[in-house]
Structures are given as structure tokens and as C-alpha cells.
């Protein structure tokens, strides 16, 4: 699979930062979440040990995935759950559609599932004339606006309450100009309660699947996954196979890390453990590969499959905070998305590993210790080797390597650069120079470090 994204991260980010106060607000809001995470992490002296355990448990599962998946399936079937396997997004969507069609249901609710976003399930079902109601408040807001979530934990983090107020006024008939979050949330509660009570089929994601019990855990703060799953007569849970963990006791490690890393909460309000359908209910699990087994085989990138989707790497990333989730043009944005998406489609996502300063903050906060910034760096090399790097970048890199390989040229170029910045500033301080955008050019020093050193050595 290979395609072209409609725009690159850099192009979309340029539009995002055109509104400077809003960019600052976005930046501050996410940094605030990052600070809450720090406070929660610091409350546990064993935090670093927990991260190590989580990382090691995940690696153990990745290295025994075949056995664990078979064990999980066997146990789930014994529990009365129907297990389906999907090689890719299309098979996943077809399976869900078939269940909907076979049961002739119309009223469908869905809680947050990044996998179904990855597979574009809503669009696919929409084309078949099936309407899905997203029930997470943030997801409902962006669904009304025909937008994608911009953050995997906080789907509407790019919007201000005034935006939500206008959207709800249009779709739910709330008072125009009333943007009190309490009032708006109450309106959504009433609207979605009707949807829950009437729902026939509920789709949820899966945070963790447990090989030992054949069950799975879904975490929410709102209670929307449970309202749907327990009200509807059919429950479909969709999961990437990497959600598996060996035993229920390991949930102790992951549930301690997940919410603290995500929002700074000690745990989400609801950590729901499903293992059998209730009497008279159908329960389905769709296990999806969609490129994951390929990523498992890439030694330098396989650790990305440890991800538990907490979004700590988003909140800390200086590039994400100042470019917004939509700039990443993928279901999972941010640093982790930038190492997962090139595996899904290298051509379409070749820009993403370059949307980083490689500062390493993502790796430092990751609860399962994925070396995110190192993988970003490795993806850049892979993409360049595949001949997918932008032409201008390749030429610039070639030019740079020539200059750096020849000291005399390097010194001459430095001298010319200093002279130009000093005497002909308009040559650099203009719109044609990408480094001048949103920046002041620095003052040119009188001499290079080498000249200064040679002069001072003699003194």
C-alpha cells in the first residue's frame, strides 16, 4: 500500500501556527497535562521500576505473541466470545459490517478506539449507509464537526469552548453563546443517554487483553464504553494484537501507569474487565494485524508495538504542542504516530519522522520505555535510503556533506555567511528562507570560533 498524503506535516503546521495566541494556548494546555503527569509519576517512588516492568512484560509478550494469541483465543471462545481475525483494515471493516448486517441493527454507538480510526471504520460504514454515534464527548464534538480527533486521549484538544458551543448550538440546539463547559457537557449527556438507551450494537476498543482469562479491559472516565456495551444486545471489541498481556496480575502494572501517564489521574474512573457476554448478549472480538506483524519483524522498530496509547509523548513534544494533531494527517499523531505510521504506509507518512527535534523528551516520559526519538532518527535513515526524502532535503544534505568534508570550503562558506548576514541582511531575512519564518535571524559574529581560537592561542 502506498499513497500520497494531502499535505505534509510542515505545510499543515504552518497554517496551525499562523494564529499565534491560539498556538500558545494549545502549547500551554498540553504542557499543563504534562505537568500533571509529572506530579502523578513523582508520587510513586517505584515509578522507574514500574516502567521497566511494563517494558519487559511487553517485550516478553512480543517475543511469545503466537502462543499468547492462541491461548487468548481459546479461552475467549470457551467464555462464549466470538473471535474474528482481520489481516488489514478492510477485513476489519468487513467483519464489523457483516455482524451489523447479519443482525439487522441500525442503532450503533461506539466508544473511543484508535484502531477503528486507523481503519477508517466510520467512513466505511457511512458509505454502506450505516450511521455510527461516537459517544466519547470529545469524539462526538469532532464527529459533529466532521473532523478527525487531534489527540488520542483528548480528541477535541484543538478546540476552544466557544467552538464547542457553536457546534452544539447547531447540532443539539443549545443556547447560542453559552459556552459554559458544565452546561455543554450536560447537553451532551442528555443527547447521548437517549442514544445509549436505544442502542442495539456497541463497538468499543480494547486497552488490554489478557491471555490467561480470555477477557479484555476497557478504560474510560466518562463511562461511555460501559453504557454502550451493557445496554446493547451486541458488543464488538476491536483490538490490535499487541494489546495482549499474559495474566490479570500484570494489569496491576499497566493500570498504575496508564492514567498517570495520560492525564495525571491515579487511575481512570472506570477500568472495566469484560470476560463473558451477559445472558442473551453477543460478544465479539476482532483481532487485527494491519501491518503489526511486519513491524514485529523490524528489529529496530518492533518496540513501538509496546505502546499503550497514553499520549504522554504527545503532551511533552515541543513539535506536537506547537503544530496540533491534525498536522500529522494520521489517526495516531505525535511522536509515537510518527514511528508507527511509516510502517503502515511509508510513502504517505515519509514526512512524519522529520516532524521532531529529536530532543528525546518522548522517550523519557514513555511508560513502556519505547526509544521513540531513536526510532524517529532511524526512520529518517530508512526513508532516505528508500529514496523518499524530499528532493530539496537530499540536495541540501549532499551539499552539507561536501562542505563538511572539505575544511577549506567550510571556512570560506562560513566567512561568506557571516559577511552576508552583516552587510546584506535582506538576502537571508526574506520569505524565501525557511529558517527566517517565525524567527529573527541571529547577529553574525565578527569571527568564527576557529579564528578566535587561533588568535587567542597566541596571546
Amino acid at each position, binding site marked *: 500500500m502506498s499513497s500520497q498524503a494531502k499535505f505534509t506535516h510542515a505545510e499543515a503546521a504552518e497554517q496551525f501556527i499562523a494564529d499565534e495566541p491560539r498556538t500558545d494556548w494549545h502549547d500551554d494546555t498540553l504542557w499543563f497535562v504534562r505537568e500533571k503527569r509529572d506530579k502523578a509519576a513523582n508520587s510513586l517512588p517505584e515509578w522507574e521500576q514500574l516502567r521497566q516492568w511494563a517494558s519487559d512484560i511487553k517485550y516478553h509478550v512480543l517475543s511469545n505473541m503466537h502462543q499468547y494469541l492462541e491461548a487468548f483465543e481459546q479461552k475467549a471462545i470457551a467464555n462464549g466470545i466470538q473471535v474474528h481475525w482481520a489481516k488489514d483494515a478492510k477485513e476489519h471493516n468487513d467483519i464489523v459490517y457483516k455482524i451489523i448486517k447479519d443482525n439487522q441493527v441500525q442503532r450503533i454507538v461506539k466508544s473511543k478506539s484508535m484502531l477503528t480510526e486507523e481503519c477508517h471504520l466510520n467512513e466505511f460504514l457511512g458509505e454502506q449507509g450505516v450511521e455510527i454515534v461516537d459517544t466519547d464527548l470529545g469524539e462526538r464534538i469532532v464527529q459533529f464537526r466532521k473532523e478527525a480527533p487531534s489527540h488520542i486521549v483528548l480528541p477535541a484538544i484543538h478546540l476552544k469552548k466557544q467552538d464547542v458551543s457553536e457546534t452544539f448550538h447547531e447540532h443539539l440546539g443549545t443556547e447560542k453563546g453559552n459556552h459554559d463547559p458544565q452546561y455543554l457537557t450536560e447537553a451532551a449527556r442528555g443527547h447521548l*443517554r437517549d442514544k445509549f438507551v436505544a442502542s442495539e450494537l456497541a463497538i468499543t476498543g480494547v486497552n488490554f487483553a489478557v491471555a490467561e482469562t480470555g477477557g479484555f479491559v476497557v478504560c474510560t472516565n466518562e463511562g461511555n464504553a460501559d453504557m454502550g456495551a451493557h445496554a446493547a444486545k451486541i458488543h464488538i471489541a476491536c483490538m490490535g494484537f499487541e494489546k495482549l498481556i499474559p495474566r490479570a496480575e500484570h494489569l496491576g502494572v499497566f493500570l498504575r501507569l496508564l492514567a498517570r501517564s495520560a492525564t495525571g489521574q491515579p487511575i481512570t474512573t472506570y477500568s472495566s474487565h469484560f*470476560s463473558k457476554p451477559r445472558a442473551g448478549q453477543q460478544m465479539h472480538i476482532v483481532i487485527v494485524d494491519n501491518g503489526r506483524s511486519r513491524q514485529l519483524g523490524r528489529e529496530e522498530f518492533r518496540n513501538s508495538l509496546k505502546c499503550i496509547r497514553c499520549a504522554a509523548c504527545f503532551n511533552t513534544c515541543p513539535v506536537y504542542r506547537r503544530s496540533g494533531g491534525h498536522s500529522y494527517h494520521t489517526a495516531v499523531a505525535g511522536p509515537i504516530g510518527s514511528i508507527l505510521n511509516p510502517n503502515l504506509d511509508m510513502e504517505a507518512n515519509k514526512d512524519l519522522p522529520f516532524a521532531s527535534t529529536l530532543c528525546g523528551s518522548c522517550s523519557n516520559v514513555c511508560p513502556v520505555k519505547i526509544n521513540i526519538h531513536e526510532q524517529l532518527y532511524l526512520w529518517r535513515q530508512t526513508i532516505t535510503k528508500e529514496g523518499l526524502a524530499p528532493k530539496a532535503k537530499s540536495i541540501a544534505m549532499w551539499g552539507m556533506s561536501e562542505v563538511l568534508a572539505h575544511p577549506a570550503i567550510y571556512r570560506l562558506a562560513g566567512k561568506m555567511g557571516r559577511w552576508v548576514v552583516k552587510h546584506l541582511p535582506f538576502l537571508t531575512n526574506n520569505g524565501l528562507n525557511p529558517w527566517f519564518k517565525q524567527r529573527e535571524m541571529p547577529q553574525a559574529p565578527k569571527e568564527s570560533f576557529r579564528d578566535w581560537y587561533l588568535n587567542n592561542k597566541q596571546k
Partner: protein
Amino acid sequence: MSARESILASIMANQPVSQDLPQIDLRAVINYDNVLHQFKTVLESIGGKTMEINGWDAIQQMMQADTKEGKQMVNGIAELGAIDANLATQKAAELASVQRAYLKGGIAVAENGSIWVDEAAMVNRLLPFIAEHLVLVIEEKNIVATMHHAYQQVASFDSGFGMFLAGPSKTADIEQSLVIGAHGARSLLVCIIP
């Protein structure tokens, strides 16, 4: 080849050399001098309310007060009287008007204020979510320090459903403003009996 076989074959071909599971050593994990105090502090910090009571009488009085005020109240605690036989099979439309549900909680966790509620204790899986307000009764001796300790005691997942519940339903999806009462219960009161 079916999707199942092709996925499993691809995984088998690509999975790395097996690495052992780590040992979770509970000596490395935080403990609290007073788990009751820690539990109450954390639960209140996440929007829950707590009340220490001496016995079932206090709950009985709350239920009577509800009935007097004409509130639709549902009892799910055997110690407090008969449980409506229809409750287990009632559908969302019938439960939507429940104003307060009284249920019994199991293991409670000091580090995060959460309480394990098993399917049997919910009577109906939907009840703790759809009730406008929720009262959980727990026993002080069931409070443990961390999730690791809790999972040692939640031995069985045989009933089919269970959850760790921590506080009332909430959301911060509108500009990060915390709003209590998203889709689930608007309030959680935890009564702790000795």
C-alpha cells in the same frame, strides 16, 4: 489460508527470541502507614465522597430518606433486604430512571481510590453506570495499598464482568475543564464499615 492462519504465521516468522517475564517484587512497591486515610484522601481528590459508618443502620436510614423524598432508589445489597428479582434482567429503558443505587464494593485500593465491583455485586451490569447517583459500601479490612495487592485478591474473573471504579463519571473534553457527571453516575459516595 485464513486470516487467522496467515496472521499467526506472519507473527511466528517475525517474533524475536523469547525473553522471560520480569518478576514483580512487591517489596519494591509503595506502602502506606494508614491505607484508610490514603484511600479516603485520594478518592476525595478525584471527586468521590467518603463516610465512615458503624453499621448497616446508617445505610438503611439513607434509603428510607430517599423513599420519603420520592426518589427512585434501587437496593443491590442483600444485607439491607431483598433484592428485586427483576433487576438482573431489566433493560436500559427500565433502568434509566434510577436515581440512586446502593451496591456493595469489594477490594478497595489506597493508592488510587478505586474499588473492585464484581458482576454479582452489581446485580445488573448497567446499574452502576446508568444510576444517576451511586452509593458503594465497603469494609475497611478490604482496603489494600496498591493495584498489585488488589489483583492478588481479585482471584476470579469467572462471573464475566467486573471493574475498578474510581469516583464519579467525569470528562475534561471541553477545554480541559473538569466536569463531573459525563455519562455515568453524577456522584459516588463510599461508605466504609469497620
